[in-house]
């Protein structure tokens, strides 16, 4: 039996297994490379575990996810439009721009600051501070100016292009460059009628908030609903732009032509009579629709930043709804209405005016201090006798008198759909500051405050068969493609229809008898003047007054009511000389714009139907 050595041939031929030796020698290199290659994945896995389990990391990532997922964009729907009653645009939208900087692209913040200072009148230091920020993960874009006009943006674009063409250098070279400046279009508010009806409309600020008038009252509806949407950066996840409906549009009761005409007449009257300010309210007494509401001062709503220089506590944005004053003798129509309706007096009731009436420990005198002798109630209104009014109030009784005043809406908001309405003040028996004497003074419009709109609304009840309609300026709303009409609403019925008719007749007669300058040829109107002394800390002024007139017509079928108030006129203190002619002039234009034929023709046309 032979024994054969079995083994590696190389071993056998005396090479002492050199390959195996080298292989073992170099094994550590493979191990090292393997370990190195494994090290990084192991680190990645450990990091993944750490990120997944460390609460801080989890929170941080959750916060960062949206930033990397997409761009968050605020989608603001176009603001609703505002039209007059015939569909003429009063408040619309136009393209304006937001000017900003992409911080990573800014080469020369000095140039940007200088240019915007000159072209947009934006403070240089403010722009420089924003534009010179270092771009970072949190600072990408900065807004420099908003509501920039198309013309201004075109100027900036031309400058930017010129600088680019002239070979603007890098950031270090500090060559002039507007690189990084970007313009984003958006819709901003515009008012085509400029000053006309500005006190009714109000305005919209840069942040889209409506202020004053209709813009503030209906802001939530006009502005629509803003939406925030994340647009994914991943192109495979391109998202639809959400359908954001525009804000609701409004059709006002205002007639632009009447409004413009009334404003023109009022401005002329203020200038002619040297008054501090003026207010006119034109209503349809049948519906409570405000056809025009003119007041001063007014402003071009396209430059609404002038607001701060024009308005303050003594000069509210809209005197017609926000300024309560002692109306004076125009208030007498309510006193007589209360007396007639309660049965305390009749039109033919005779009052002996001795020139003085004692009530609550004070003496009431007439406006001229005289005694007017025997007067029926029409005479009391015609001569505007304070003594007679105080007597009527005392005959009516305090409780009844104030109940009627409340029913006429005195001392409470009319609820008109405009921002900033004032309620005025009506003291009542039981109030801490009410005295018996107040009944006497209140009867002729002293010691009680109302806004011009409140007085106009109260008087409109007398023109509308005793029904007080809620005054309003919005006729319809247009939302989601449908038009919703607002139906006229009865606020109260302070007097009976026959009382209203009787008083209208008495007022029309009193104007005719005294040949008032308020009369309008061809049209029978009813009305009452008012001359109110102005209360001061030292008592009532006698040389400065509030001159007013309230009137309506045609008496047999009232279609309009006009309230005129001129504050502190210098040409004359009397309402009959200052406010009454303004009423007449307004009505002469109004009947043309309303297509109202003279009474005789109207009656003739009605009979022939």
């Amino acid at each position: 039996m032979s024994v054969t050595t079995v083994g590696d041939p190389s071993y056998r031929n005396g090479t002492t297994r050199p390959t195996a030796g080298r292989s073992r020698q170099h094994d550590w290199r493979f191990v090292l490379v393997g370990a190195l290659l494994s090290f990084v994945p192991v680190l990645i896995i450990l990091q993944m575990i750490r990120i997944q389990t460390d609460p801080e990391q989890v929170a941080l990532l959750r916060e960062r996810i949206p930033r990397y997922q997409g761009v968050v964009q605020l989608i603001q729907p176009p603001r609703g439009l505002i039209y007059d009653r015939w569909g003429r645009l009063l408040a619309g939208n136009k393209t304006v721009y937001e000017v900003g900087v992409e911080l990573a692209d800014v080469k020369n913040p000095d140039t940007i600051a200088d240019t915007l200072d000159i072209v947009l009148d934006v403070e240089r230091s403010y722009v420089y501070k924003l534009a010179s920020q270092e771009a970072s993960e949190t600072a990408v874009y900065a807004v420099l100016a908003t509501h920039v006009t198309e013309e201004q943006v075109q100027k900036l674009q031309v400058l930017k292009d010129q600088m680019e063409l002239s070979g603007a250098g890098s950031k270090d070279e500090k060559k002039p460059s507007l690189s990084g400046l970007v313009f984003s279009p958006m819709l901003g508010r515009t008012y085509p009628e400029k000053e006309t009806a500005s006190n009714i409309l109000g305005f919209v600020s840069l942040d889209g908030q409506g202020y004053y008038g209709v813009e503030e009252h209906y802001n939530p509806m006009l502005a629509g609903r803003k939406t925030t949407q994340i647009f994914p950066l991943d192109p495979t996840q391109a998202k639809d732009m959400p359908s954001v409906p525009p804000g609701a549009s409004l059709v006002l009761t205002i007639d632009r032509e009447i409004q413009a005409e009334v404003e023109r007449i009022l401005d002329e009257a203020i200038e002619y009579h040297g008054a501090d300010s003026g207010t006119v309210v034109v209503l349809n007494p049948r519906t409570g629709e405000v056809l025009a509401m003119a007041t001063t001062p007014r402003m071009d709503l396209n430059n609404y930043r002038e607001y701060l220089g024009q308005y303050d506590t003594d000069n509210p944005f809209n005197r017609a709804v926000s300024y309560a004053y002692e109306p004076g003798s125009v208030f007498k129509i309510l006193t007589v209405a209360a007396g007639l309706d309660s049965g305390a007096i009749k039109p033919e009731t005779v009052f002996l005016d001795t020139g003085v009436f004692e009530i609550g420990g004070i003496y009431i005198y007439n406006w001229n201090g005289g005694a007017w002798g025997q007067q029926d109630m029409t005479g009391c209104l015609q001569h505007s006798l304070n003594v007679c009014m105080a007597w009527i109030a005392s005959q009516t009784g305090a409780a009844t008198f104030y109940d009627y005043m409340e029913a006429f809406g005195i001392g409470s908001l009319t609820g008109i759909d405009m921002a900033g309405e004032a309620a005025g003040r009506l003291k009542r028996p039981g109030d801490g500051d009410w005295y018996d004497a107040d009944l006497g003074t209140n009867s002729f419009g002293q010691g009680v405050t109302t806004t011009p709109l409140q007085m106009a609304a109260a008087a409109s009840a007398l023109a509308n068969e005793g029904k007080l309609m809620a005054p309003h300026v919005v006729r319809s709303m247009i939302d989601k493609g449908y038009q919703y009409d607002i139906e006229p609403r009865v606020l109260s019925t302070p007097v009976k229809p026959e009382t209203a008719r009787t008083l209208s007749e008495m007022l029309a007669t009193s104007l005719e008898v005294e040949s008032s300058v308020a009369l309008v040829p061809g049209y029978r109107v009813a009305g009452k003047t008012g001359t109110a002394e102005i209360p001061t800390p030292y008592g009532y002024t006698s040389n400065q007054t509030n001159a007013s007139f309230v009137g309506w017509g045609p008496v047999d079928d009232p279609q309009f009511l006009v309230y005129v108030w001129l504050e502190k006129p210098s040409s004359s203190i009397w309402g009959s000389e200052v406010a009454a002619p303004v009423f007449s002039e307004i009505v002469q234009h109004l009947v043309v714009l309303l297509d109202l034929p003279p009474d005789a023709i109207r009656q003739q046309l009605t009979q022939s139907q």
Partner: protein
Amino acid sequence: MNRVQNLTQAYSQAPWRIQMQIIGGFLLALVSIAIVAGIYLNVSARATTIGREIQGLQSDIRKLDREIADLQSQVAFLKSAAEMEKRAKEMGFRPIGMDETLFIRVPGYVERRTAVMAPAPGPVTLPPPSQPSEYTESLFAWLQRKIRNSSFPFMSLQPFKVQP
């Protein structure tokens, strides 16, 4: 024992055949994955392109909306009360006086109506906006739908009896 070996050998695959089968299977899987990935890429690319086109069109809509608003405002400026009065005066017109107005009866004349900018709300309800399924369903859902649709004719077959 030899018989068993002979049988086993007879039915055994040659090693090269087994290798070919493995390679073939691997290639088949690879090709299948490539096809699915290709289809997925193709569909995704088309969806993305269309999505971007939609975004572009939406951007155009916003631009047109702004242009319409601009034009509306421009027209309103040109037709504002002050502008109209100025133009009327330039053309020789003047405001009519109260005593110059002539009222005549015109049979059939319809009085001017206040603005009607939109229809009054009625019982008509619009259908909800629909989006094509191409924009909403996943590839897997699409495949499922296609398969279901292709097999539908067979699924609808009902067994029937032959009347004697």
